[in-house]
């Protein structure tokens, strides 16, 4: 893994080191390292010249900015009403059985984290899940297998 100083430096070069650069930088780190480690947040605080508490306080507000270790692929199942009506529970159950983890957990090999999230904006095609930035709609338990295999082999 690249040194955290280098990662932050690349991001501040790209987005600047003002306060308003904070979100893009936090997003950049999350993309590269799957989550925001304490070291990363301390380094950002130093680079932006703000307190680490400010960095943590901001990051912890956003559900996509994780401050605990996450898998390489974060699976987010939509739990909002329309997907719930169209079989979301079955999808969650299938994923839990397949990955042998519960919602909120990460597989031992660090490959997958399973989470629930709110309406993804594809209600007419529920149930749907987001795997990192990729969206899958109208999924069935059978499709879940295929989708997971695709990432397993990546």
């Amino acid at each position, binding site marked *: 893994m690249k040194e955290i100083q280098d990662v932050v430096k690349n991001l501040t070069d790209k987005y600047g080191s003002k*306060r308003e650069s904070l979100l893009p930088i936090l997003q950049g780190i999350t993309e590269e390292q799957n989550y925001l480690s304490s070291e990363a947040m301390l380094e950002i605080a130093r680079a932006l010249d703000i307190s680490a508490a400010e960095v943590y306080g901001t990051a912890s507000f956003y559900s996509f900015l994780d401050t605990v270790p996450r898998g390489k692929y974060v699976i987010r199942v939509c739990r909002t009403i329309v997907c719930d009506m169209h079989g979301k529970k079955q999808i969650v159950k299938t994923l839990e059985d397949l990955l042998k983890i519960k919602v909120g957990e990460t597989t031992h090999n660090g490959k997958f984290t399973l989470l629930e999230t709110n309406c993804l*904006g594809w209600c007419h095609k529920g149930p749907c899940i987001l795997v990192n930035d990729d969206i899958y709609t109208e999924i069935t338990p059978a499709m879940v297998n295929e989708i997971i295999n695709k990432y397993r082999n990546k």
Partner: protein
Amino acid sequence: METKKIKRVDFIFSQDFKVSEVLFNTFKKTRDEILQEIIDSDLKGRGGAGFPTGLKWKAAKEDKITEKYIICNADEGEPGTFKDRAILEEASQKVFGGMAICAKVIGAKKGWIYLRGEYKFLIPHLRKEMAIFHDMLHNELGFDFTIDIFTGSGAYVCGEETALLQSMEGKRGEPRNKPPYPTNIGLYNKPTVVNNVETLVLSMMVVKIGAEEFKKLGIQDARGGKLFSVSGDTPKSGIHELEFGMLLSDFVEEFGDGDTKAVQVGGASGFCVPRKKFDTTTIGYKGKLKGTSLPTGGSMMLFNSSRSMYNVLHNYLEFFAEESCGQCTPCRVGTQQLLKGIEAIKKGEKSHEYLEALLSLSETMKLTSKCGLGQSVANSFSSIVENFREEMIY
């Protein structure tokens, strides 16, 4: 009661003209002329709240500060809404065009699209379209205005315009007090117009066809067409552009599955209308109409008789409890209490009279919460509890 039969409209996705031509013709007019057209059209914001677009632009235009911004709100997080994503996928040039027209009127040189993190997959497409647009705008029209993308990170409340600004400034997405309004104190304290994706496209349509033509559609204070995101128990789920002012009973006849027991108008923060009120409810803004007229950001969720309205309400309350930013007590504590409250009644731990206490709690939240999130929980809460009382208890 004035109503309209269901009529399909084709504004948003029609591709029968070139955005550059509309801009070319529009830019020949004065800023005041363009603004007047928008004001005359009675166009209201399509993000949910329905604020008159012309008045918003006017407030920003009149501010003496010279640096101004325009933000396209593409945070689309209201349960049951998915139309803004479709607009950005299929008609992004018109969104950019609407932003440029607003920029001309208020005098802005910089704009952003605030895109929810869930729609990150759209970025490559948007960047490509944006390059084409900028090339046209700068080189053919010689107009100095540039758009960029800012990505959200999974917080529904950031769709609220002042929370959105906080987030763009690198802070927690906690709504600010209003006033001052963003049109005077917005991003980096500069005058800022925040408009919904669909509103911006319609601004472009207004200047293209003229206010008079635009006003021929709709009723009274709800003019023009609207994109509806239709989902739930319906054989026709998807995006439909319809004229404002239809009766809910006509809507259900067109989109229902023959067994519709309730329609949630406006998402979790909107209202639940039971079958017996379908033919006295119109879809528009809360105007002076007789009967009920419901505003909506376009989310229409249909429920048939196999659905438990308790489960529906429970799902909404979990949503609000999770998405409350926690900044003010009525909303932070209220959402938790409503959720625990209906669970306790269902389990028989509390008597059904406790529902009255919960209803009055939701009223208090409406009056005392700081932003629209906490204020609107009562909409779905009271409309479900009052119309489906037995389902809450047994």
